[in-house]
């Protein structure tokens, strides 16, 4: 599934080496390091203002970094203008030229390259086929729907056969249902063409479902750069833990046998990532609810929220509110007992691991919040 990642064997598709950007006296991106393997789709994920779009614009050549370098396929492009870079961008607002037809928009870059007319026609048809828009060849951009405009923007980028495809929040202007469909399409096309892709998003769902790797950004730095599964199972910082998926946080150090609750009672935990830390993070699916009492900490069901094939249960245990995912169907006010399979322990926001500890249970099995790809 994942393309070759060994840097020793192949030149990376894209390499950012210590790039920084200051805008208006504020450091937007700080000494960022990022390597993307050829054919890999990486998501830059983070809250607004974290520097993800600025990073993308530096790769595309719309901004030049204050320091560091941008290398594509082993070649340095740090100071090249956008038209000299082998990159193509899909803009958030699509940026289709309103005075050109769909075919005109897609063919513009080929015309600039002085390609023959018949050849342009061939390439444009290929791109239109790719995004299934052959019937809108001669339509004006204002006359087609938002989803179709988005696909034209994608075709316009792909027709140039870029080495790196850049996408800036490509789905944020689409409605929820269309978004899921278009992101599947984007992923399918990206895999078929094997094109190195950087996609910027603030939507963790989107990132988890399309990316080979996700770089979670905060305050101009990458907090963690890992595969979706690793990111979810072992979020390296408390920020990542809170940003990706749901997480119960208990601001206390682990005690013998488990995690301390508000009233001093103990929530039994089978595995801690470490026994030394100041914050305990528990994924909702790591909490086991037992309808019989006495098999863990006593808890009362506060509320249950149906989530389709599983339920989200809000529990009160020892004065602390916990959220759990379960296949069972407890009722509000039921008395149950809860215990935890695996908990993550953080010190000063950083994940603590004892090397002897077993790996956290596989999150792709069981009742996870994340639908499988």
């Amino acid at each position: 599934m994942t393309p070759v990642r060994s840097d020793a064997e192949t030149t990376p598709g894209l390499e950012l080496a210590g790039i920084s950007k200051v805008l208006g006296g504020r450091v937007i991106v700080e000494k960022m390091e990022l390597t993307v393997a050829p054919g890999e789709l990486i998501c830059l994920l983070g809250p607004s203002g974290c520097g993800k779009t600025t990073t993308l614009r530096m790769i595309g050549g719309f901004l030049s970094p204050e320091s560091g370098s941008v290398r594509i396929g082993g070649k340095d492009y740090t100071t090249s203008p956008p038209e000299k870079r082998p990159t193509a961008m899909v803009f958030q607002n699509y940026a289709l030229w309103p005075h050109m037809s769909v075919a005109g928009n897609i063919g513009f870059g080929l015309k600039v390259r002085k390609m023959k007319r018949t050849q342009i026609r061939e390439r444009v048809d290929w791109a239109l086929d790719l995004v299934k828009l052959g019937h809108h060849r001669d339509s004006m951009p204002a006359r087609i729907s938002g989803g179709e405009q988005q696909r034209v923007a994608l075709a316009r980028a792909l027709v140039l056969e870029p080495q790196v495809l850049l996408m800036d929040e490509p789905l944020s202007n689409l409605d929820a249902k269309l978004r899921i469909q278009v992101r599947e399409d984007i992923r399918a096309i990206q895999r078929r063409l094997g094109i190195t892709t950087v996609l910027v998003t603030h939507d963790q769902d989107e990132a988890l479902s399309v990316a080979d790797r996700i770089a979670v950004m905060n305050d101009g730095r990458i907090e963690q750069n890992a595969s979706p599964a690793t990111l979810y199972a072992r979020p390296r910082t408390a920020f990542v833990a809170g940003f990706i998926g749901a997480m119960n946080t208990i601001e206390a150090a682990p005690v013998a046998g488990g995690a301390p609750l508000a009233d001093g009672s103990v929530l039994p935990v089978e595995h801690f990532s470490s026994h030394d830390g100041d914050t305990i993070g528990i994924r909702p699916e790591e909490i086991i609810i037992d309808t019989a009492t006495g098999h863990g900490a006593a808890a009362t069901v506060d509320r249950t929220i149906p989530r389709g094939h599983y339920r989200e249960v809000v529990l009160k245990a020892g004065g602390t509110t916990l959220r759990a995912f379960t296949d069972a169907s407890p009722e509000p006010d039921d008395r149950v007992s809860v215990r935890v399979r695996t908990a993550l322990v953080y010190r000063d926001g950083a994940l603590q691991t004892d090397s002897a500890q077993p790996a956290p249970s596989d999150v792709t099995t069981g009742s996870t919040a994340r639908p499988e790809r």
Partner: protein
Amino acid sequence: MSASTNVGTPSVAAPRRGTAGMIRLAVGKLAVGIVAILLLVFILGPMVWMGLDAFARRWKSPSLLPQTWTMHWWHTVLGGTQLGHSLRLSFEFALVATLASCVICLPAAYAFGRSTFLGRKTILLGLFATNAFPKMGLFTSIATLFYAMHLMTTALGVIIIQLLGTVVTMTWIPAAAFAAVSPSLIEAARDAGGGPIRVFFQITMRLAAPGIIVAVILSFLACFDEAQGTYLVGSPKYVTMPTQMYSLVENYPDQAAAVFALVLTVPSVLLLLAVRRHVMGGHLAEGFQLK
């Protein structure tokens, strides 16, 4: 007025209004009607009068129409004056002044529209200064300068004086048009491989074109109709159509001036119709519905 027929037969769609509401509605409609008619008389009245006057031999009040009709004044104006010459001169001056205005003002408009710099607002407002003072006072002080520079009764002098009147239009409207071109459209063109010059002409200029065309046509009309400055600087050597009006009004009965005024209207009306068809026709406006 149709609302009054509804009394006593309330329909489901339109709930019955009270009598007071009905009266208010009727009075409102009446007021709007009166204002519309007044405006119509105010705008079209003088033109109708002028149109009739152009064909009148004798027209004494209180009669509403001239007592005797004639084509005499048309023959006088079209045959007796150097109409063809002054018409050509008007076009030539207006054309050259507008082109010069484009060359001078469009780069400035681009700078105002697409970049921010210190004093941008002040300079933009400063451009209005030429319109803030009485034209004739401004022109007389310019005349002193022109005498010193030997620009009086020269073609260049006339062109400069006409150009001055177009600066505001040629800067403000294109600046707004340039500013309205979304930066991402320009970036997308650069991204697709277009160099800065190609992108400027094929994307930026092309998308700002409707605004620029409107400014050019308004400027041309302003130059074409400019009378005071051209009279002061150009006469008696360069007599354009509007300046010829002055001598006509002084030397002929007012019927001749009416004929000339009608002739003078024709090019302006034709140009305005052209603007309407090409710019407000909707073909270009359609393109701007994109976010």
